[in-house]
């Protein structure tokens, strides 16, 4: 009964990612897309908080959005998996519900 959480806002401008991390349960997945992809990059002031969850949660980033913002795969936090839209759809299908942190 796991949940796919989606986050589409920059973690530096908005509190959505932090709130999502606070409410996701072990075994859930988080997909970062649109401006949410900035949460998937290494070396930022929130990267440690995200990386700390990579054991208990499955973390994904939408590759098209990361590419658009100049975030190369090599800059992703370890444990964050890039997916395309087909992968996004499959994540939504394989989890019991989506919870969209707008």
């Amino acid at each position, binding site marked *: *009964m796991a*949940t796919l959480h989606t986050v589409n806002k920059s973690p530096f401008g908005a*509190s*959505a990612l932090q*709130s999502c991390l*606070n*409410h*996701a*349960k072990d075994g*859930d997945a988080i997909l970062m897309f649109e401006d949410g992809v900035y949460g998937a990059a290494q070396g930022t002031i929130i990267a440690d908080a995200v990386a700390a969850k990579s054991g208990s949660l499955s973390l994904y980033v939408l590759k098209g959005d990361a590419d658009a913002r100049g975030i190369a795969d090599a800059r992703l936090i370890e444990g964050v998996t890039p997916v395309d839209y087909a992968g996004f759809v499959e994540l939504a299908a394989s989890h019991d*519900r*989506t*919870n*969209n*942190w*707008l």
Partner: protein
Amino acid sequence: MEDNIKKFLYVNRKAPYGTIYALEALEVVLIGAAFDQDVSLAFLDDGVFQLVKGQNTDGIGVKNFSPTFRALGDYEVTKFYVEKESLEERGLTADDLQEIMYEDEDDDYAEKPSIRLVNRAEMADMMAEQDVVLSF
């Protein structure tokens, strides 16, 4: 899951008036009440501000929709989950929220409070039990 009865959760994370999301979420809840689903409302982050008592919009020319929350009991919308941590961060306690009551038809129509204070972990648990989560 009973046939055709789903657990619907409406998630409110935004403050009222600055944007229309809170008002238009309420419009969905009102319409949704006619569908006989198992409805819950979550108020967390800035969404807790929607329930603060003493709202007076005379000075900004915008309609005060906060009294509508008190009418939801009549539509059998009686589960308002409000997150304690969100209140605390904002300098609020349960006393700062409006009183929202409903009549429990399974208990001789006793008046009961619709607001259920929950901590963050309980909010997460409740969210994880839903079939449909609608976020505003």
